């Protein structure tokens, strides 16, 4: 049996290049199973280039803590977008399940499906719970160049809230302003990202 309060896995730390991914989004649910998913219904790391991103990994659609966590992220989406960020939710549920969940909860950001091969993306980000076969409850803030700027993993039964993400995005914005000036400087050598 998976232990809900077992020591969580270690998510990729700040300064790590975000591993590439390409996952079908909830928009792909309009297609029947087996139908090829058109290009515009996938989301990939490359799509996120040029702006900060928030990846919200969570264990499962239609479960209690996840519902409240995603509701808060959805409610605070305007503020996250005002900080320049795009927000994506990721779990191992199928796109059809994501569709039902998105509609029921009026979620305002896309959910991606790490369904097949199951958990491949979550594993790359160091947040797949092998014993339970679900993602950890993990948060990542990526910078505009696709480097992990901040990450955190919470116990399965604990909703992390949005304060860590807000603070990370604000620090990221501050760094960009301080270090900015045309032309935009290239990213620092990898491994020197801000520490959480």
């Amino acid at each position: 049996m998976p232990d809900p309060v077992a020591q969580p896995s270690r998510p990729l730390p700040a300064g790590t290049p975000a591993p590439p991914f390409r996952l079908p989004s909830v928009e792909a649910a309009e297609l029947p199973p087996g139908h090829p998913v058109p290009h515009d219904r996938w989301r990939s790391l490359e799509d996120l280039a040029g702006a900060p991103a928030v990846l919200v990994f969570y264990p499962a659609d239609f479960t209690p803590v996840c519902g409240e966590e995603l509701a808060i992220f959805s409610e605070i989406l305007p503020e996250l977008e005002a900080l320049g960020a795009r927000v994506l939710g990721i779990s191992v549920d199928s796109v059809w399940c994501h569709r039902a969940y998105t509609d029921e909860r009026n979620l305002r950001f896309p959910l991606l499906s790490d369904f097949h091969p199951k958990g491949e993306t979550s594993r790359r980000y160091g947040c797949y719970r092998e014993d339970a076969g679900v993602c950890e409850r993990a948060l990542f803030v990526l910078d505009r160049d696709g480097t992990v700027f901040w990450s955190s993993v919470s116990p399965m039964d604990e909703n992390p809230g949005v304060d860590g993400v807000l603070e990370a995005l604000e620090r990221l914005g501050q760094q960009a302003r301080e270090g900015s000036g045309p032309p935009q400087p290239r990213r620092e050598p990898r491994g020197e990202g801000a520490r959480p």
Partner: protein
Amino acid sequence: MTELRSPIGPDDHVAGPRDAPVQLVEYGDFECPSCGAAFPEVETVRRALEGRLAFAFRHFPLPQLHPHAALAAEAAEAAAAQGRFWEMHRLLFENQEALGPGALVSYAEALGLDVERFRTDLDERRHRQKVRRQFLDGARSGVNGTPTFFVNGQRHQGRFDADALLEALVGAPSERAP
């Protein structure tokens, strides 16, 4: 984060003396069943610590889960604009299943408010910004659901029945001053 970023201030509705030695802040949602369950518990705590407790209620509506929560919060603020926040707060928690616009107006009538003014406040969403401000402030303090309590500025973990809250606020019964 487990610390309350904004201590009780002029923007807050406070029951009890503002400078009371014991400070309790709740982030809540009028349509949330757990907040409804917490309401009588907090009432018990308020009675037990009368004169020694400052209790502030702040809005943390989650319309994704509770479609009437945002307008109900604004209704409480509209009542507050007429000096009747706590009476409306009670009515909303006692009638959680009926928080539609018509019901809100009927509560304003029951409290003898200036109903036209109340209705205009809601129609024009005059208190929306204040509710939003409290929500954002709560999010920054790490509020991750409702109800979330802060006891003397520290987040309260675990149960929120009257006994648990009293223990967090003033210690276990054996430790309390007579």
